[in-house]
């Protein structure tokens, strides 16, 4: 019975690893209280549950030199984004449905119906907003922090600044945990009305985009480059590899203690005879 339990526990400890390597890739998976996540070849995308207005979605990159790491590129916030003056998080009914590589998020209220399609491609992530009529949007995209946006640094613009209208936004950032630098790019499908960047500490933590249209897509991509030599780092996504080790160690410790206990018991009963 003990052997069975030991095998049962150790076998189950491999479940996260099996799921992670065989089943979790290239599909929108729901979890928790209704969040969805997509792990692609190069990108990880989180679309948070309906009770949280952050990460709607949050695009992260898996660097080639540290494939288990997830480095944030940009986060769309529903807390602070608006359509026709209505807040995405507070003022809409939301439904989320996966459809292949795309997550279809429907925002509805009596006078507006808007879809946010989040599509995971091998080389980029597209966030497309579509409605059957024209709408005015104010989007806020966050990252702590971007060291430059379209070539501008905090030295150039210490105050919130409107940057020249464009359909291509490029930004850079540093990732201290991996001793690396990164670049991100957001390509807009339509010309916006206004783009602003917001300073925070040593860089910018927010890009706001205002536009008027019936559709707009933002294609997000990024790259990471190591600075010097990189060292292995620990992160949450290494857990599937560690749990079997934990299981084996704890079960082995139990078996050892149990064996020793039985030996002592036998010895005691022999000496008492």
């Amino acid at each position: 019975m003990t052997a069975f339990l030991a095998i049962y526990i150790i076998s189950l400890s491999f479940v996260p690893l099996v799921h992670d390597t065989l089943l979790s890739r290239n599909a929108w998976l729901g979890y928790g209280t209704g969040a969805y996540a997509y792990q692609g070849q190069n990108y990880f995308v989180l679309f948070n549950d309906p009770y949280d207005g952050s990460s709607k979605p949050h695009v992260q990159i898996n660097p080639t030199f540290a494939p288990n790491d997830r480095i944030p590129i940009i986060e769309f916030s529903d807390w602070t984004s608006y359509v026709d003056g209505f807040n995405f998080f507070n003022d809409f009914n939301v439904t989320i449905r996966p459809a292949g590589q795309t997550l279809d998020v429907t925002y509805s209220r009596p006078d507006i119906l808007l879809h946010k399609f989040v599509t995971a491609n091998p080389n980029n992530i597209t966030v497309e907003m579509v409605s059957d009529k024209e709408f005015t949007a104010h989007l806020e995209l966050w990252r702590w922090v971007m060291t430059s946006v379209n070539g501008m640094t905090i030295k150039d613009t210490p105050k919130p600044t409107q940057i020249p209208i464009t359909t291509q936004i490029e930004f850079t950032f540093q990732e201290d945990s991996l001793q690396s630098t990164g670049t991100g790019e957001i390509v807009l499908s339509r010309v916006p009305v206004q783009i602003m960047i917001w300073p925070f500490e040593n860089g910018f933590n927010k890009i706001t985009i205002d536009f008027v249209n019936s559709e707009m897509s933002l294609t997000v991509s990024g790259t990471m480059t190591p600075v010097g030599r990189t060292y292995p780092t620990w992160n949450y996504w290494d857990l599937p590899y560690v749990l079997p080790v934990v299981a084996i160690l704890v079960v082995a410790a139990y078996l050892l203690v149990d064996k020793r206990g039985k030996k002592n018991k036998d010895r005691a009963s022999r000496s008492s005879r």
Partner: protein
Amino acid sequence: MLLALAVRLAIAPFFMHAGDVGTIYESSAMALNGGNLYDFVYAKTLQMQQATGLPVFFEGYAYHPLLIYFFVPFYWLSTLFAGQYPVMIDGHYPSLPILVYPWAPIMLLLIKIPIILADVAVVYILAGIDTRKAEIYAFCPYVVFISVVWGMLDAIVAIFLLTSYLTFSRNSLLSGILYGLSLMKLYTIVLLPLFVVRLFGKWKEMLQFMGGLALTVLPVAYFLIVSPTSIWNVLVTFQGGRIMGGVNFYNFIWVVQDIHFDLGISMIANIMLLVSIVLLLPKFGRKGPLLEAILAFMLASFLFGKVLNEQFLVSIFPLILLCKECDSRLWVAPFAFIFLRSPFYYFALPILWASPIFYNSYLQADTVWRQVQAAGYLQIPMYAVGIGFSLLLFWNLLRILDSTSALTDVTHRQTRGFMRGLIRTLGPVRLATLRPCRAVFAFFSNSRPRNRTWRK
């Protein structure tokens, strides 16, 4: 006993588990106003499922219908102080509650009274058997934490399970009622096959026991008539279809963020639980001491069942204390687990919310905690403690099995003689200390206590 009561009363107003106390508070208010708790929870679940397209459930009131009526009078008392406006708003994960001062601590004290009374009753009964065991229960940090810091109601399950066991051989009707009341949290349902098999052939006792059980299940029948879909969804679909995890070796599943996969693999635990119960039935169904039989079933369900929350052990802790084969230090593992899963300050919200300075400290500490959690540092010790606790449960289960095997060898020849001899040896000492609580049972069961048979 008075000291145990004093300790609990002193702690109760200042601590809580926001989600669990919030559920009881919200449900008490709803029940007092005549609302249907199951309809409310089911509506919330449907809303979540509609929004997400996922089989997610609203974690609200998913208990026996009678349970809330233990709390409603105390909720009503709190409204006499605080008025009709809520003093605790929300608190369901992931939201943090809003507390209204100075009424929130008063409400917390009052709403925990049924749990405190249950704890005190357990101490009283244990004191009638063995004062040392009563002391362990009264001042065990784990029990105190679950009952009054956390505000979880497993002590109510504990008192009913303990009394059901103690009255089983003396008054089947009362034992059936008490067992039915222990189903306030549904996990003691695994004992039903044991009781049925044990009473099989003793038709009068069986009828009385089942009659008592049926009395307590009447409210469930009522809800099955008035809102069948809601109660079925909340009590059966939710409880039966939960994702595995807790203080057990199944908590690796928290790393796997895929709800459909998680639900599928959780079926393994259901199958294992069923198999373990089926295997235990021939061993304990007809023979062996009832105490060990109950513990074997409960330990097996904790070991193989898919959900084992930190507080569940409280329900059988008095029985563990009575069992010679079990190690009462089992509580250490779930107690440690509490602090790995939730930061200690989370339970002190009523204190921390009282001042902007404390509130700010909370936010700072929480940022650090979340970073540690997000890095996965806590998942490793949680998994290790989960496996360790499962193995300790297994070790205790094996000891019970070994002891009853030895006992069964003897009883094959001379069951009654052996038990009589055992009771004769232990009886005078124990029965002398038991008189007060036996008198209580005699009063409830309306029968004279029969000497030297209560523990069989």
